[in-house]
């Protein structure tokens, strides 16, 4: 890999790290969910020296063209990221159900109380 390519990949990794960091700082991105993207940025920076790892790994797995190995690793990373976010969505769905049911109950209670209040005679205002 040329020096230029390595510098570009390192800059890309640092940019993603900085971008995610800024999003977290502005509270546009939750800290717990951002961890995954810091890890991704870290691996991109490491990726600048991937050929030292990729070449022997590709040889070990019998992949004739080593750069394909990068695509394979990226694919695995993406699948893991998707799985992680599916778990997060699933958890959010459960919480949304709880909230919706609680809100519905509270709304029902409020309506019942209003009905009771409306049925009761109103006390005279002070000074009447």
């Amino acid at each position, binding site marked *: 890999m040329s020096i230029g390519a390595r510098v570009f990949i390192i800059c890309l990794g640092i940019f993603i790290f900085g971008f995610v960091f800024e999003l977290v700082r502005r509270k546009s991105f939750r800290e717990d969910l951002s961890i995954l993207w810091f890890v991704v940025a870290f691996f991109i920076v490491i990726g600048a020296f991937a050929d030292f790892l990729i070449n022997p790994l590709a040889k070990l797995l019998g992949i004739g063209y080593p750069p394909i190995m990068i695509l394979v690793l990226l694919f695995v990373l993406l699948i893991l990221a998707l799985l992680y976010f599916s778990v997060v969505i699933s958890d959010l*769905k*459960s919480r*949304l*159900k709880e909230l*919706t*049911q609680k*809100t*519905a*109950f509270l*709304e*029902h209670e409020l309506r019942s109380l209003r009905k009771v209040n409306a049925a009761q005679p109103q006390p005279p205002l002070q000074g009447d």
Partner: protein
Amino acid sequence: MQRCLDARILVVLPAYNEENNIGGVIDKIRTHNVVNDILVVDDGSTDETELVATNKGVEVIKHTINLGYGGALQTGFRFALEKGYDYVVTLDSDGQHDPQYICNLFDAMQETTANVVIGCRIIDQNYRMGFARRIGSFIFSFITMLYTGKRFTDPTSGFQLIDKKAFKYLSKGDNYPLDYPDANIIILLHKNSFTVVETPVRMYERRSGKSMHSGLKPVIYVLRMLLSIAMVILRRD
């Protein structure tokens, strides 16, 4: 019938965009005079379901968003638990179920001491089950029999009587699925030592609107239900 009226039974009607059917179903329940209390759980309808039900003078709880059939039923279970009911009857809001059979379910529960009684369809010419639903019913019936040792002719039926012990359990957390309470629930209840039986009831074709069992949905439904059943069996409580 009096025994049925004396018991603290709540009829739960989960409804999603059923403005054309819900009024008729409420009227029919009242005509038969078998239960006193009715709760409509409006599952985020975009039509006038809530207004129609409110004008009929029944209790109405409205979800701000659509949770799904199971989510609406669980809201009903939670309501029943909070208000101290002893039994819950679940009926579809599309007019398929005949409320005069509520007492049959109640009698079956008293005779068998079961926790849940499922109303299965009386086989006659008045009701024609769709092809997809027939296939689904057959598959789920077979799996349920393998696990529970009992034959359920209609595990997909939403016409059920559930006692307090069972609906208390189902009202907790994720014990009840949001979308597909079906054969998976029979298996879940059996696994947790609840007794489930079925008794014949009359059912009709839905009056108007689109059934959840129409279009391509049945195929997806069968796949998801199979997954759900597998998970219920494999999970450790």
